[in-house]
């Protein structure tokens, strides 16, 4: 592939479990405060990751830029988690903010990804419509997980599915992002859904 590098020695770590052999990505989408960081932290080793966002006119009046008028870029922290499996398989989770101006990052994460978890707050379901459209349009497998907050009125999965108007084959589930088991169940549901989506019709 790359002739300039073809004379290099074979990688000494080729069969070491500790070394990545296959990498997979999952995007965790959701609005501010919906529990992305908690979800990523519940199932994986969480690490800091920054990206650099160019502030455009579109964000004028949205961001409070008072006092930072001369700042031309802003730093966005992504939630970044990593799970290591046998055979050098690594699964990376990337949680990114839900606003449209972050969608350039979503595109980058979504390319080649297993799929996405759309984390929703049942008190603010309408804020999830745009993310659901995003994945539907790009045919990226996704699951909807409603984070059950303390004090939030209990909705059933069917009520949430109806309110969000997602296709019947899209898994919709409730979860408590603080609990490892329910967070894991969301990952399992997404990977299962992705396997089904990738099977020949």
């Amino acid at each position, binding site marked *: 592939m*790359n002739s300039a590098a073809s004379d290099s020695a074979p990688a000494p770590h080729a069969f070491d479990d500790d070394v990545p052999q296959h*990498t997979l990505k999952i995007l965790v989408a959701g609005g501010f405060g919906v529990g992305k960081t908690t979800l990523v932290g519940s199932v994986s080793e969480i690490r*800091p990751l920054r*990206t650099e966002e160019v502030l455009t006119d579109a964000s004028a009046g949205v961001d409070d830029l008072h006092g930072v008028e001369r700042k031309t870029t802003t730093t966005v922290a992504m939630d970044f988690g990593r799970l290591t499996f046998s055979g050098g398989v*690594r699964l*990376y989770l990337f949680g990114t903010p839900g606003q449209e101006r972050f969608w350039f990052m979503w595109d980058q994460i979504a390319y080649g990804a297993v799929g996405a978890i759309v984390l929703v707050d049942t008190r603010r379901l309408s804020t999830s419509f745009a993310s659901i459209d995003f994945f539907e349009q790009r045919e990226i497998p996704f699951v909807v997980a409603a984070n059950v907050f303390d004090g939030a009125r209990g909705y059933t999965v069917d009520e949430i599915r109806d309110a969000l108007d997602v296709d019947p084959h899209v898994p919709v589930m409730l979860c408590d992002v603080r609990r490892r088991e329910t967070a894991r169940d969301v990952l399992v549901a997404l990977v299962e859904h*992705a396997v089904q989506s*990738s099977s020949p019709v």
Partner: protein
Amino acid sequence: MEKPRERWIGRDAGPIVRPYAVTRGRTRPRGLVVDLVTILVATGRTPGDRVWLSREQRRLLELCRRPSTPADLASETDLPFRVVQILLEDLHQYGLVEEMPQAEHGERPDRPDPRILMRVLDELRRL
């Protein structure tokens, strides 16, 4: 390992050296575009006489002696991902790092290999 904290005057102020100074003015990579999870490894070649590497690039090259991904490298160096992406692309152009091929899969290169997904699923269920 000790991180080069001296570049910072508090998170809100951002780095004193602007990211685009680190990348020498470039805002997007040319040539190889590394993904967040592309596996990269140092080729073991030594930089030629005419290749000048920044401190950040030398650090990334050092870290790439073990296969790693841009996401991991950005996290480890505390540099923004976009900056790391550009610096790695330079290292690739100089022949100092290369992409480690992952197993080829089916008709959809933009979708993960279902066999690997099945393996992950087994292990996830046991978590």
